[in-house]
C-alpha cells in the first residue's frame, strides 16, 4: 500500500522548501547579491505576472514547437537510417564510417554552417536540433534492428514475409523498446539545442528570454525562464514515459 503522506516524501518536499527558504532569507538579508540571486518569491512573482498577462505563452509555444519539430525530424530520419543500418550489412558498411566520423562533432558546431545555408531562421534552428538529436535515436535503432532474435527472423522467413512486412511486423516492434529509450534521450538533447540556437541567433523563445533577461540585468526574469525550462523538460520527459508505458505495456506485464 502506498500512503498518501509518506514521511520520506514529506521530507523530500521539506528539503526542497528548506533550500528555497534559505535562499529567500539570504536574499532578504542582502547576504547575496540580489543581482545574481533574486529572492525566489520575486522569481515566482514574475512567473505569475507573465502567466497573468499572457506574455509567457508565446515564447513557451515557440520553444516547444521548435523542439518538437526538430525532434520529430531527427526521429523519422534516425529510425529510418537505423532500420537500414541495423538490418542490412551493405547499408552498414556504406554508412557506418561516415557517421562514426561525424558523430563526435559537438552539435552546436554545425550552427555556423547552418547559418550560412539557412540564415538566422527557424529552419536553421530546426536543422541544428535535428542534427544533434538524431544520434541517440539512431544508435538505439541500429541496436534494436540488429538484435532482432534469430528465431523471429526465421519465423518471418518461414511465413514468407517480404522485406516490408518483416520490418513492419517483426523488426520494428522488436526494436521498439530500444527506439523509445533513444527517443527520450533525443528529446532532452533537442531541448538543449533549442535553447542554444535561440540564444545564438536571437530567435524568440524561452532561451532567448533568459538571454535577454541577463542583458538587462533582470535576474528575476532569468530565473522565471529557468523554472519554465525545467518544467518544459520535465513535461517532455514524462510525455515520452507515458508513451513508453502505452506502447510497451506488454513488457511490464507478469503473472
Amino acid at each position, binding site marked *: 500500500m502506498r500512503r498518501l503522506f509518506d514521511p520520506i516524501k514529506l*521530507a523530500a518536499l521539506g528539503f526542497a522548501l528548506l533550500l528555497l527558504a534559505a535562499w529567500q532569507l539570504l536574499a532578504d538579508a542582502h547576504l547575496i547579491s540580489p543581482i*545574481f540571486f533574486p529572492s525566489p518569491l520575486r522569481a515566482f512573482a514574475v512567473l505569475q505576472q507573465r502567466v497573468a498577462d499572457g506574455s509567457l505563452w508565446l515564447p513557451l509555444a515557440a520553444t516547444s514547437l521548435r523542439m518538437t519539430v526538430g525532434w520529430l525530424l531527427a526521429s523519422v530520419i534516425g529510425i529510418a537510417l537505423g532500420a537500414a543500418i541495423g538490418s542490412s550489412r551493405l547499408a552498414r558498411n556504406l554508412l557506418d564510417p561516415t557517421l562514426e566520423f561525424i558523430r*563526435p562533432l559537438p552539435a552546436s558546431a554545425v550552427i*555556423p*554552417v547552418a547559418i550560412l545555408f539557412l540564415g538566422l531562421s527557424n529552419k536553421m534552428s530546426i536543422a541544428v536540433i535535428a542534427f544533434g538529436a538524431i544520434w541517440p535515436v539512431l544508435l538505439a535503432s541500429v541496436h534494436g534492428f540488429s538484435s532482432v532474435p534469430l528465431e523471429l527472423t526465421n519465423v518471418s522467413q518461414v511465413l514468407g514475409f517480404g522485406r516490408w512486412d518483416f520490418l513492419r511486423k517483426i523488426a520494428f516492434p522488436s526494436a521498439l523498446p530500444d527506439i523509445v529509450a533513444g527517443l527520450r534521450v533525443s528529446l532532452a538533447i533537442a531541448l538543449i539545442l533549442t535553447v*542554444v540556437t535561440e540564444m545564438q541567433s536571437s530567435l524568440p523563445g524561452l*532561451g532567448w528570454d533568459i538571454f535577454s533577461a541577463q542583458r538587462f540585468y533582470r535576474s528575476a526574469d532569468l530565473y522565471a525562464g*529557468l523554472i519554465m525550462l525545467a518544467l518544459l523538460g*520535465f513535461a517532455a520527459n514524462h510525455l515520452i514515459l507515458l508513451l513508453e508505458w502505452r506502447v510497451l505495456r506488454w513488457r511490464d506485464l507478469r503473472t
Partner: protein
Amino acid sequence: MRRLLLGAIIPVSSLVAWETSSRTGLLTLESLSRPSDIVVAGYVALRDGSLLLATLQTCETALFGLAIATVIGIAVGTILGLVPTAERVAGPTVEALRPIPAIAFMPLALMMFGFGVGLEASVVAYACVWPILIVTIAAVRAIEGRLIEVAAVLELPLWKRMTKIVLPAAFERINIGLRVSAAISLVVAVTVEIVLNPRGLGYNLILAEQSLQIGLMWALLVWLCLLGYVLNLVLSHVGRGPTAIWRPL
C-alpha cells in the same frame, strides 16, 4: 578491406563531386568553398598556431569544468549513496534540477563570472556533474555490505573508510560516469564558446563564419570532428586502464 572500400564510397565521392562541381562552376555557392581551399585554410591555421591555441583554450576549460564536476559529483554521490534516506530526501530536488539544460545557466554564469574561463568552466561543471553523481550513488550503493562491515569492524575513521574501502570498491563504476562526462565536457565547452564566450575553438568557428572565411570554418569543423573522434577513442580504451589495478582487491 572490402568494408573499408565500401565505407570510403560516400565521403570520397562527395568530396570529389564537391571539388569538381565548384571548379567547373556548376556550384557557385559561396558557403561551400572547395575541399582543397579547406585543406589550405587548415594548414595556415595550424602553421600560425591559432588552431593549437584555440584547441588548448577549449580543452583546458573543459578539463577544469570536468574536474570541478568530478570532485562535487563523487563527494555528494558518496554521501547520498551511503545514506539511503538522504538520497530519498534530496532525490526529487536533484531530479528537478537535472533536466534544466546546462546552457540555460549560461546567462547566470555570465552575470557572476563575466567572460572567460569561469563562465565556461561553471557551465561545463553543471552539465558534467549529473552523470558522475548518479553513477557514484549507484556504485556506492552496490558495494557489498560486507565490505562496509569490514570497515566498521576495523574501526577505520571516516576518511580512511572512504579512501580505503568505499571509493576503491566503487571506482570501476564511477569510471563509467567519468567517461560519459568527459565527452559531455568538450561538447558543452564548444557550445558556450559558440554562443557567448570569446575564446577557444567554438568562438573561432563562429568568427570564421561571420567574417566569411568559409574555408577556415570548414577546416575548424573537420578539426572538431577529429578532436571528438580521438577523445572517444581515448576514453573507450585508456579509460579502462586504472580499473584493472583495483581488480585484485
